[in-house]
């Protein structure tokens, strides 16, 4: 159990700066997710932590050891790759055996054919270890098969097995679920969380899917353009995004961004309608973020729009309403039963829950709204 500290990590490829001084502390046993759009540097950061890539600046510490200049093999981390990277010519058992062999066996013990004779006891011990791990992952039946004969989910498990088998300090996972089909992905999400609870080992998980970050992690780091924009508990990141970019990235469907304004007396108004009086903010134009679930259909609501599209998910329904003066439709969540009669091209009125709106200044940073009024103002 050791804590992982990344400090001041910088990395450039040619003239493109991929990471700009990243600081990140992962406490022992935490499930940390690095999430961001593709090209934000999250995978590079993970590879630097793994030692597969050298940082231009900064330090990596695992426990008390500075591992910045250490080879990946000496860091005792395990990695699960997006493509699984199983050795195709070896069976699952041999794949899982490989890290053990390379670490625990001497040169003689590693020889093909005669190796098991030279180091018989060792080989038996390692084989037992492989079987124990396989039992944990319920892949004992697959041990004699080659990766080519496995389905995506089974390969995923075999790759996990290869990572788990030598009890590493931490697991690094680079988009491990993105090659699976949707149903399996949701299933594996639960299974990975369960695995983390059982192993109590540190997980550092890279994904571009904010749903994975929200559902699985203890802490999530939202990365964009080589920087960590926000680091915190998923619930907190969702409920109080630190910037407009984070707010837009986290949550699906994406947050609605409405142009707003704070007037001389500190009242926040959106499209001419006062939403929150007396925010104690200075006079400025602002962006107001409202999540779809905080928009409600309301016959007396201040906003009007025409329904352009309905997405019925069964449990929820999302309405895309075209509002005059906005480029993008506003998305509202509702319940299918409440909307039985509403069809396309119909006009609806709605309101926003004033205590759930997020106010962002011109620089994109979250503005603290003092004592938001709980009263909706029309």
């Amino acid at each position, binding site marked *: 159990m050791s804590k992982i500290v990344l400090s001041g990590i910088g990395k450039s490829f040619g003239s493109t700066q991929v990471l700009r001084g990243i600081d990140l502390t992962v406490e022992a046993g935490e499930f940390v997710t690095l999430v961001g759009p593709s090209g934000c540097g999250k995978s590079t950061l993970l*590879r630097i932590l*793994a*030692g*597969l890539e050298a940082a231009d600046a900064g330090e990596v510490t695992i426990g008390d050891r500075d591992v910045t200049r250490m*080879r*990946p*093999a000496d860091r005792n*981390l*395990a*990695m699960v*790759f*997006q*493509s699984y*990277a*199983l*050795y*195709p*010519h*070896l069976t699952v058992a041999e794949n899982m055996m*490989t*890290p053990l062999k*390379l*670490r625990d066996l001497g040169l003689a013990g590693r020889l093909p054919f005669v190796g098991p004779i030279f180091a018989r006891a060792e080989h038996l011990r390692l084989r037992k270890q492989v079987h124990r791990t396989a039992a944990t992952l319920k892949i004992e039946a697959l041990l004699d098969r*080659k*990766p*080519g004969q496995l389905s995506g989910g089974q390969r995923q498990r075999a790759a996990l097995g*290869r990572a788990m088998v030598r009890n590493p300090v931490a697991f690094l996972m680079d988009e491990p679920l993105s090659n699976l089909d949707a149903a399996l992905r949701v299933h594996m999400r639960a299974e990975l969380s369960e695995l983390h609870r059982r192993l109590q080992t540190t997980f550092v998980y890279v994904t571009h899917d904010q749903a994975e970050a929200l559902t699985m992690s203890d802490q999530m780091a939202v990365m964009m353009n080589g920087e960590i924009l926000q680091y915190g508990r998923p619930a907190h990141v969702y409920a109080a995004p630190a910037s407009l970019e984070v707010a837009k990235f986290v949550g699906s469907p994406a947050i609605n961004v409405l142009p707003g304004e704070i007037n001389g007396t500190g009242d926040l108004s959106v499209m001419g309608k006062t939403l929150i009086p007396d925010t104690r903010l200075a006079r400025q134009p602002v962006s107001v973020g409202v999540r779809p679930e905080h928009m409600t259909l309301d016959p007396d609501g201040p906003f009007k729009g025409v329904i352009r599209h309905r997405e019925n998910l069964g449990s929820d329904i999302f309405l895309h309403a075209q509002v005059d003066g906005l480029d993008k439709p506003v998305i509202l969540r509702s319940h299918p039963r409440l909307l039985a009669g509403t069809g396309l091209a119909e006009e609806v009125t709605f309101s926003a829950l004033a205590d759930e709106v997020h106010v962002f200044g011109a620089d994109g940073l979250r503005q603290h709204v003092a004592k938001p009024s709980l009263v909706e103002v029309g």
Partner: protein
Amino acid sequence: MPGSRAYLWFIGPAIILMVLILLLPIGIAGALSFTDYSLGNTSANFVGTENYERIFTRTTYEKMFGATFRYVFVVVPLTVLLGLGAALLIHSLTRFGDLYKTIYFLPVMAALIAMAIVWEFAFHPTIGIINATLERGCGTWLETWDWYAAGCARTFPLWLTDRDYAIWTVAFIGVWQGFGFNMVLYLAGLTSIPRSLYDAADMDGAQSGWERFRLVTWPMLGPTTVFVVTISFIRSFQVFDTVEAFYPQGGGPSKSVYVMMFAIYEKAIQQNLMGIGAAITVVFLGFVMFLTILQRWLVERRTHYV
């Protein structure tokens, strides 16, 4: 549609062509190999397996097999190993890779007949660059090597006309000419190895380049290697141009470079003994067939990963 004959129109042209230009000539060669036919004769006598008996009993053909196998078993391993080595080195380069690729591939593209003339000059005992260079080394520490000392005392070997050296010299030119081709095949194989496997090997604790090679590169090149070895075998069995250029008559000193292709040419074309020429061709076909079937079997058995 049951009863439809449309499929004949789809496979017909290919089958007709294959029969006309491949199967029929092979059949004719097979038939001729049991006769004493000569080009221009209106008829031929059936001689049974006499031609084959000759191939497997006469010393000339013993020499033919000797020369062919010597050549093949020198050229195949060396071209494969050198091709792999050159490919690995070039693949590890970040710059000038294309330059080296071109240099190593040049002999493959060059007309071998022309190259043979150049080599003939290089190996010439008096004006050749090779022996001249070797003579420069006389009087130095190189003379501690007995072979070298003997060369200095008398004269360095007549590479192309000494029967102890001729076949090895021809094999050397075969290696020089052939490994660039294998290098290109291996380069293609190397680029198709996913990067993530090397990352996985690093994470799993592969410390040295050798361990990475053993764990990832070599197994992943398995299918390429089977192909490269087969194609090298077939190409080496086919060696002809160098032999014909160096020794237009007789297949070298004491027939020591009398390789199969040259034997076919000499018997069937120069001496107009179609029967025996056809018989050698059939034997040759047997070798190539055996290698090809072996390759298919290996590919399906051992290296079929996905």
